[in-house]
């Protein structure tokens, strides 16, 4: 079923073949181009599709986990709205990459100053990862949103809507994206497997689903990575690939600390963080998970987890993640004292 572009009826949408060899990155090649292709978010798609058809979208806020289709839906909306001129009428900003709210505001101003091309009276700004903005920056953005409402609509995405201040939430239609279920992932995955002439077993699909934690981007990247080695995708290969991403060495860091060798633990920690440029927040997640696997008393595990929580909190408030992690390691050294 082809949806026709309301602005450009001569130009049906799924014109480009799925197998566009220009883009060899599968996450792009298989990014849904039409509302119907988006899986797992049926209710949202239906509502957004209706809004888009009316050629008047409100500000939108997409909340939900990574890899569930937030950016993809935003792209579908603008392509649907503007057709071939979508690139001129669409600005994508990434809150976690833009260094300050001033940059964002400047870019927004420059973009919104000129009128939209075509029938649609507004342009669209997609502000990805809006929850990366501080409260103050969000307050500032709120004014900008109001000032340019007539010429510009905002689509914002975030992982947690609670991190978006109320005044912004109240100006947006909020859509909460669900974590993709296995059947949704499987449906789309099988399509790709078929197009790429790959072999895959049910067990491997299970492994892909497990290691992706519902993130479809990860599923496709893992699939492409495996396919680059062999057209037969095996669960074993998937597991090998995902293990390279996990900061497994965190365990070694903790073991050094528990054995009392703080300096070694510290050195190893910095090494792990720098070598794979792992963020402190990912390290602390790994530490928190690892505590339960340690060979220590349960009560100690509770105490250390509490300390880990406090450290994670301080990381969000402080300025230097490494110092906070070091401080946590010092607690491990002390906890390890009773074990030696």
């Amino acid at each position, binding site marked *: 079923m082809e949806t026709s572009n309301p602005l450009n009826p001569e130009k049906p949408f799924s014109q480009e073949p799925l197998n566009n060899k220009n883009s060899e990155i599968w996450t792009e090649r298989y990014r849904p181009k039409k509302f119907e292709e988006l899986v797992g978010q049926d209710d949202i798609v239906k509502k957004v599709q209706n809004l888009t058809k009316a050629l008047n979208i409100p500000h939108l806020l997409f909340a939900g986990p990574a890899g569930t289709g937030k950016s993809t839906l935003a792209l579908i909306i603008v392509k649907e709205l503007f057709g071939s001129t979508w690139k001129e009428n669409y600005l994508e900003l*990434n809150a976690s990459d833009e260094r300050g709210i001033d940059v964002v505001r400047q870019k927004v101003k420059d973009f919104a100053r000129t009128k939209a091309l075509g029938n649609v009276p507004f342009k669209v700004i997609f502000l*990805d990862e809006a929850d990366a903005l501080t409260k103050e920056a969000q307050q500032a953005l709120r004014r900008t949103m109001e000032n340019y409402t007539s010429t510009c609509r905002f689509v914002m995405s975030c992982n947690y809507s609670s991190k978006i201040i109320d005044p912004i939430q109240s100006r947006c239609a909020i859509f909460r994206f669900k974590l993709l279920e296995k059947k949704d992932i499987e449906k789309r995955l099988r399509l790709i497997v078929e197009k790429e002439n790959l072999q895959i077993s049910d067990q491997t699909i299970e492994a892909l689903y497990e290691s992706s934690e519902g993130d479809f981007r990860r599923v496709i990247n893992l699939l492409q990575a495996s396919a*680059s080695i062999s057209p037969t995708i095996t669960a074993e290969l998937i597991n090998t*690939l995902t293990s390279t991403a996990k900061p497994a060495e965190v365990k070694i860091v903790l073991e050094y600390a528990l054995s009392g060798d703080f300096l070694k633990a510290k050195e190893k920690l910095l090494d792990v963080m720098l070598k794979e440029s792992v*963020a402190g927040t990912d390290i602390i997640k790994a530490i928190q998970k690892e505590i339960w696997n340690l060979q220590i008393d349960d009560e100690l595990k509770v105490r250390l987890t509490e300390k880990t929580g406090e450290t994670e909190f301080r990381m969000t408030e402080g300025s*230097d993640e*490494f*110092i*906070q992690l070091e401080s946590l390691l010092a607690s491990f050294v*002390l906890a390890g004292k009773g074990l030696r």
Partner: protein
Amino acid sequence: MPTLPLIEKYRATSFEEIKGQNTAIQEITAFLKTFPMKKALILNGPVGIGKTCMAISLAKEFNLELFELNASDLRNRSKLDEVLKPATAQKSLFKKGKLILMDEADGITSSDRGGLPELLVLIEKTKHPIIITANDIWQRKFNLLRKKCHLVNLKELRNEIVLEILIEVLEKEKIPDREINLQTINTIAKKSRGDIRAALNDLQTVLELGQEAYISEKIEREKQDTIFNALKIIFQNPTDKDTLSAYNNTKLDLNEILLWVEENIPLEYKGKALTKAYDSLSKADLFKGRIYRQQYWRFLVYQNFFLSAGISASTKLKNKTFISYKKPTRILKIWLSNQKNAKKKSIIAKYAKLTHMSKKKANKESFLFPLILNHKNTHEKLDLDEKEQKWLKDKKEAMIEKYNLG
């Protein structure tokens, strides 16, 4: 105006004139009386507290001829022969014997010419007592030397004693009260941190150039007051009243100091104190983050507090062992790693732009880059340069080898 510098004019030449070092004087006297039970004695302590004066006075009290050696003399045969000759064979004309002074031993290197091995030989063979002065005898290279010698540790002079000496000098110089006020003298004494040489030099500046000139001169001296001193105060003197202002003289900003402290905490503290110290450091960083985020600069007070007094309170014990503090290395490591990861970073940026995601998220997928971006088409699409392409290729090969793929 005096032509001789005050520091020379009023150099102590007898035990009586040396102030605030009574225990040390007892020890040094006992050493001489029991010689040759121990052949050498080390006077270890900070500068300007009277180590050399003590040796000079000792020679005078016991009517010994003072024989000074320096590092290069240790290789000077004729000079050493003089020392090594039997004491009876070369008694000086009027004095009973000799006292050898090896001043400022820190300058001796362990392997070079005129080095430590020669000094150790000298101690073995000497017929005369040897006094060695040093600022920091706890360096590893002195391990052997320490074992062979009687060690006397000297503390910096107490503030009152410096003050007493300064006032005494002023009286002897017959300086009228109005020319120099008590407050300036107090400042001089306090700034000297128990270094009487520095105090007397400061006093001289004030007398010759007036109090205003002293202030600017003082600033110059403060510049030399390094971060090492600050760390020493914080880490090793938990009872020091100056902990809060310890960093004032370092001329480093708080961020740099934070890194210095971070680097050196584990060298100084163990166990519970380590945890406490890091907790304070963590809190200092917490306030730093709040300042940055909210631009609320009053939090600086707390950042400074936790960084100084907070850490200092980690232990009540005074640490006497010498610790050679290290320069912060983390920034350098980060820089090196960034250089190494520059290719990866630029690929991430290009990939993020093409695939509508943030660099942060793209970084999380980057472990798969070598496998998913290694196509000619993708290279073109991402506009990768030759170096970036090579990085991907090398990484892919490394991955295949490491995980035994393919």
